[in-house]
């Protein structure tokens, strides 16, 4: 049953990956790699968070983003296009939208709170969700960019044709 859930998660992430890739006009051969990387990345996070490991969202997102980054660099030589092509569509399904909304929600309630305890409570909600959201995004973007820089030599050679 858990496997089915993982599969479903990967499938919808892959669909989202293909769709969001199309916004940025990738070369045609890139679509299938976008789907594969987006699916595997999101499934990694799903496993880390929902299996017996029960990781927090920030760590899980960072590791998933690292997986995405490494896969992007690795597969870019097959796809013959820059690894950056795959990073955004694969990351987008992991955006912590719910945390972002709760941050704004906390802020709005803060502004309209009359009593001090109430204000403190909403400030706490705003800050805790805001921190989670921003560090999650930072971790994701770092995780996906760092492999490109680590394998610098390789990342920028993939568009070369050996013939």
């Amino acid at each position, binding site marked *: 049953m858990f496997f089915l859930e993982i599969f479903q998660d990967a499938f919808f992430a892959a669909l989202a990956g*293909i769709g969001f890739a199309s916004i*940025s006009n*990738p070369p045609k051969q890139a679509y299938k790699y976008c789907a594969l990387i987006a699916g595997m990345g999101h499934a990694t996070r799903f496993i880390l968070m929902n299996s017996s490991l029960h990781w927090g969202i920030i760590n899980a997102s960072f590791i998933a983003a690292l997986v995405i980054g490494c896969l992007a660099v690795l597969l870019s030589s097959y796809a*013959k*296009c820059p690894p950056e092509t795959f990073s*955004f569509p694969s990351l987008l*399904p992991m*955006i912590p939208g719910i945390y972002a909304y709760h941050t704004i*929600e906390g802020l709005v309630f803060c502004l309209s709170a009359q009593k001090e305890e109430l204000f403190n409570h909403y400030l706490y909600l705003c800050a805790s969700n805001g921190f989670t959201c921003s560090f999650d995004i930072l971790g994701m973007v770092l995780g996906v*960019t760092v492999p490109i820089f680590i394998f610098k030599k390789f990342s920028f050679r993939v568009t070369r044709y050996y013939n």
Partner: protein
Amino acid sequence: MRLETITQYTAQKMTFSNNTPVDVRDAYVFLAEYAAWLLGCGATCIRITKNVTRIAEAWNLKTEITIMPSSVHLSVFDNDTKQSFIYLKRKPRTGISFYKNTRLSELSWAISDAKVSFEEARERFNKIITAPYTNKWLVLVLTSLANMSFCRLFGGDPMAMLIVFVATFAGFRLKQMMLEDGFDDRVVFFVCSFFSAVIGSAGYVFHIGTTPELAVGTSVLYLVPGIPYINSLSDMLDGHYLVSFSRFMGAAMLTFCLSCGLAAGMLLMNLKIF
């Protein structure tokens, strides 16, 4: 005197593999345009620098490149005449295109491996920059499907997914039409997120499904300008702080407009989520 030196400079020719002489200045103009187009189609600074350096080395051109948020400067110092030239090229107004990014990077390798002559390179370059975008109807359908899957990933039920699909479809089509008509980006983002949020709130208004809050929240996510954010961090790691900051602020501005549109839509529909 001055004129003479410039004429002298003009007389310098480069020779390529097929032995046709090329004016060095043409090569620099090509290089500046090449860099500006890479910047325009959403390449990171490290890629622009690497590609330009690669071509310059292949053609034996001595140049320093400075990348600014909206233009590219190539400065050339000529050792014989002791004169320096600046080739400045503004960033062209073109959407993010990884197709162009890929093909332009390929071109730099082809030049570096001496597979193409200068004329051929220029021809290929013109073909790349005029290449059509992905079919807009295909993009429309794929984006709507993608945002729908998004809703599912956040835990939305089938009704919420349907609402998100419709909201994205309508909003994204509006975005395409407004961009074609040449509206300002920020206005487009505000109007489209407002439009999508209003449609996305159908779940609340008509009491459809069990997760209407996810439908509203997800309906505007297709507008998130993710590539500028990622490029911004990549430029920061590479030390191009000015470009990095400019990209970040541009994206943050759009995100702000998007949030305002969402909030306005929710106010209009009198949603009490907050």
